[in-house]
């Protein structure tokens, strides 16, 4: 099966500096894949390598089975890129900007006006279609940059810090658009970001980089379970739990009591599957449960644990 993106020991150096080191990953079609890492982690270099703008020093990579170095134009006609600091032709209108990129990327002339208009509408820019881009706000420019990356209907969308420098409202608008694009259109999205909230919201899987090295890769749940082998579960009770039930819970395989207040228990369970059994035991012993909430780790907690070196 051909992956949308695949890299094999991809390495890129600039003199003595290694920007990307031995990166091996694969991204499936329709997946939203996030590359996370601090500034200088190598995220932008990865995007440039995947579009054939930079060549690898070592290793290989493929986009839909094509090598971006030898099949550059073919790969670039399948990809749309939102660069880290997207700029536009400010003396041209939004429509002229989009038309230029669409023509350049091979959109057929007869489809051109409709496609451009469709993009302007999708990104809420139709009322400003014939205004010069120089007068646009940063959020509007970012939406136009997204429209530009999508105007030729690429199979893969590379987004390098799509919400950097935007105010929370504009950032949310952009995030919502990305979510819509991936969920509704099934497009493969390769998202580089250091905005962990954004990554948690949008990504199916993430890879974490630091100084060009891959630290971890997987879904947030996979990464969580690899860092914290046990899971915390909060149990709120209506009435205090009978003491024999508590003793019984202690004796169960894979379960430990972290704290036991009269109306609030914190349990540590080895795996998620044990939670229904715990509920059953409490209810069976006469306990009255108000709420059971397994503690979900945020991507932020996962990220910092991995950057700290807690990953096994």
């Amino acid at each position, binding site marked *: 099966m051909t992956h949308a993106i695949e890299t094999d020991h991809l390495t890129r150096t600039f003199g003595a500096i290694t920007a990307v080191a031995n990166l091996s990953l694969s991204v499936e079609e329709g997946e939203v894949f996030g590359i996370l890492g601090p500034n200088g982690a190598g995220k932008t270099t990865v995007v440039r390598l995947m579009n054939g703008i930079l060549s690898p020093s070592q290793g290989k990579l493929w986009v839909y089975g094509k090598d971006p170095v030898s099949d550059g134009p073919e790969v670039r006609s399948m990809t749309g890129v939102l660069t880290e600091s*997207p700029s536009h032709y400010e003396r041209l209108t939004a429509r002229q900007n989009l038309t*230029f990129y669409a023509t350049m*990327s091979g959109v057929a002339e007869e489809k051109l006006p409709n496609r451009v208009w469709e993009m302007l509408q999708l990104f809420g820019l139709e009322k400003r279609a014939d205004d010069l881009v120089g007068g646009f706000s940063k959020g509007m420019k970012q939406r136009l940059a997204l429209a530009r990356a999508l105007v030729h209907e690429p199979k893969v969308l590379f987004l390098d810090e799509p919400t950097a420098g935007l105010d929370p409202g504009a950032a949310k608008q952009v995030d919502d658009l990305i979510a819509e694009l991936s969920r509704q259109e099934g497009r493969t999205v390769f998202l580089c970001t250091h905005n962990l909230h954004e990554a948690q919201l949008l990504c199916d899987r993430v890879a974490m980089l630091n100084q060009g090295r891959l630290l971890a890769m997987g879904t947030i749940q996979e990464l969580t379970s690899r860092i914290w082998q046990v899971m915390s579960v909060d149990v709120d009770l209506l009435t205090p739990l009978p003491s024999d039930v508590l003793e019984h819970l202690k004796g169960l395989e894979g379960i430990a009591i972290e704290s036991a207040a009269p109306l609030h228990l914190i349990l540590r369970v080895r795996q998620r599957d044990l939670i229904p059994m715990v509920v059953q035991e409490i209810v069976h012993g006469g306990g009255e449960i108000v709420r059971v909430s397994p503690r979900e780790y945020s991507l932020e907690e996962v990220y910092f644990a991995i950057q700290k070196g807690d990953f096994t």
Partner: protein
Amino acid sequence: MNGMLIVAQKEIRQILKSRNVLASAIIFVIVFGGFSSLSTLTSEGGGGPLDQLVFTLVPVLGIFMGYLFSSQAFLREKQGGIVETLLCSPLSLREIWMGKVIGVTVPAYGLTLLAAALILGLANSLSQMTLLPSLPLIAHLFTTVPLFIAATVGLLGFAQLLLGLRENQILNFAIIFALIFLLTMSQALFGSGFTISWVVVGSSLAIAILLLIATSWLTRFLDKERIVITIP
């Protein structure tokens, strides 16, 4: 449409919308074209000095226009980072470069012809007789001049894409000094007895073609990696 022409069309449109740059170019044309023709025609009469003036001054003015506009098309796009978006398109680097060269040369040549018309018009209004440019000079204006502009724009574009910000600043100073030198010395370099013959025009055309071929050959040393690494 051909990728190269798409880029060329965009460059022309952008230059025509750059009011400040266009205004600078027109002022330059009026000042240098006008004053040079005035000083030449008031010192010596007849069509000979006029031919010499047009032959030497007009290509230099064209090169200046090319310099002015290529800074917009190549350097400014590189400084703003927009060039990376172009590099991410399916177009080849050569198509992008050639499109930009055409897109810059067309308006630069248009303004250069305007400068030639201004010089000729001014000369005729000052002279008691009708001064017509010679046939070799007309051929020079319509063949050699655009080729010289294209070669210069190509070379400048090549250098601006290849070099980093600091090197480009140094290059800009060097070009400005070279242009001032050419503008002030162009006529003196050829001497007063110099006449515009078919041989002279043919030779300058050959030089322009060779320069254009050399510039085009140089673009094989351009690569996307070099451009993207030198984006400030």
